[in-house]
């Protein structure tokens, strides 16, 4: 089974490409202090809004800071936000979905109506409203993106539980006297891990997109901490004189999100080729 998965995954060029992008991003984030050519916050007023050159491959921003160095440190931020936000979403989604699918009846009805209510809110509105109250900071953003991103995972896990709970191994576990909690978390949940993993990979992509949009609007990661989104804000302010400020950070977001999406879909296709 596992070698089957590996063979199918490696044969899928897009998935491998996505995987490489994600690995490269890990490497860049991890090695940021060593590979960034400049201090990301070093202001150089002799180099304000300088275009791409040998010394500054991606140019400099309105304070003369090196854009490439800020983008390398920004990779750390988006990775952090992506993983913590998705972690929160998975935790909530998996628990609610498991409980909903396992117990059914009124528990299921209540949780599913709650999901329906959440889906009525334009997610971006909900996030902005909470941020307006809580002050924008990197931790608040991660929490809010996580708290608004669990509905899809809940539905997935619930669907898995509904079909899995009828299987013989669950009956067998019950026969030997396992309690509900044990059955849910030790016996059924590991079998639902495949769909959770796929949802998590795609979720990281979504969280990174949301974070960059929030930072772009000035409600996300606050300067001077560099993030791809808040470099783009400077790009918009200098749109008629400094195209490089708008171009490179956005390209980084596009490639990153594309990488996670390809990886996620690659995992899904390799786990179950019939789903294609």
């Amino acid at each position: 089974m596992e070698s089957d998965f590996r063979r199918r995954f490696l044969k899928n060029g897009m998935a491998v490409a996505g995987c490489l992008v994600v690995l490269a991003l890990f490497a860049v984030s991890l090695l940021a202090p060593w590979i960034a050519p400049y201090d990301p916050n070093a202001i150089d007023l002799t180099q304000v809004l300088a275009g791409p050159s040998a010394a500054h491959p991606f140019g400099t921003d309105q304070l003369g800071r090196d854009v490439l160095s800020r983008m390398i440190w920004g990779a750390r931020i988006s990775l952090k936000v992506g993983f913590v936000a998705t972690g929160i979403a998975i935790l909530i989604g998996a628990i609610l979905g498991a409980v909903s699918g396992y117990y059914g009846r009124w528990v299921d009805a209540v949780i599913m109506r709650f999901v329906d209510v959440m889906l009525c809110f334009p997610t971006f509105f909900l996030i902005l409203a909470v941020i307006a109250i809580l002050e924008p900071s990197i931790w608040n953003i991660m929490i809010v993106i996580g708290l608004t991103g669990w509905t899809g995972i809940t539905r997935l896990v619930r669907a898995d539980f509904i079909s899995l709970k009828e299987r013989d191994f669950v009956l067998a576990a019950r026969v030997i006297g396992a309690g509900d909690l044990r059955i849910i978390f030790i016996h059924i949940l590991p079998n639902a891990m495949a769909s959770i993993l796929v949802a998590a990979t795609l979720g990281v992509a979504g969280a990174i997109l949301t974070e960059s949009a929030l930072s772009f609007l000035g409600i996300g990661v606050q300067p001077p901490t560099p993030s791809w989104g808040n470099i783009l804000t400077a790009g918009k302010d200098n749109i008629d004189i400094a195209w490089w400020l708008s171009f490179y950070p956005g390209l980084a977001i596009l490639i990153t999100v594309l990488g996670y999406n390809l990886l996620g879909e690659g995992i899904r296709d390799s786990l179950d080729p019939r789903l294609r």
Partner: protein
Amino acid sequence: MLQYIAKRLLFMAPLLVGITIICFGVMHLAPGSPTDMQTQMNPRASAEAQARLRAMYDLDKPLYQQYLIWVKKLAVLDLGQSFSTDHRPVADKIFERLPITILINVLSLILILAIAIPLGVLSAVRQNSLFDKLTSVFVFIGFAMPTFWLALLLMILFGVQLGWLPISGIRSLNYEYLPAGAAFWDLVKHLILPVTLSAFGGLAGLSRYMRSNMLEVIRQDYITTARAKGLSERAVIYKHALRNALLPVITILGLSIPGLIGGSVIFETIFAIPGMGQLFYMSVMSRDYPVVMGILFIGAVLTLLGNLIADVSYAVADPRIRVS
């Protein structure tokens, strides 16, 4: 049919209650009292005056009573007053900005349909062709594209470099002096970029959905039957298959409404369009809580209404839904 609509409305009632509870909950996340904004900066606000202010907004009552009072006001669309210096009713501020937001969203929905459906159908019909592969590359990029970045790039290209399209507002400064035709063209020019970008986000999803839907339908028995009785391939695809593949699109459109409305915050802010999204952004920045909560509520209600319209149109188009 009426029975079906009544059933849908009954299903929506608890959702509406849920929406009000979440809005109310978000509002009370705020540390301290909402009146602090008005009193903190004023050294002459005595303790009694602050208490009076709290009593005026019913903040001295228990939480469930505050909720009931708030919901009662909501029922008559009284969303309170803005904290901003104009102190105008929140409902007025929102409703005067709603038409332009709805106009842009409806236009981009039309654009999404006009592009995504042919794209999806053609790539399904020519599965694995070059066209199909190019479309799927487009879909992948579309899913990953930060649309606000695309907005910046298009602004640089069409606004700054080529100078073809305006990049801010919905009207030129000399709008009032233009003859009717030119004024209309002026509006159109201002809307091209925002509408295109707002549509872009939904394009990828719908064309991919349309493709897989069409592939599914083509495998059905009734398509084989249509072919077997000697219909031309054209008639089979565009009459028999397309109609059935189009049905679920109605639901997808309903589901895409919250995304579109949410996206309006970004586009209206980037392009300085005086709609509900821009008002929302400005209110978030200035912490005008009554307006923030009002728009949060209206946004959710609009989504609910959109879904109702989608459900009902689906039932009109497909009699099977009404019965089951």
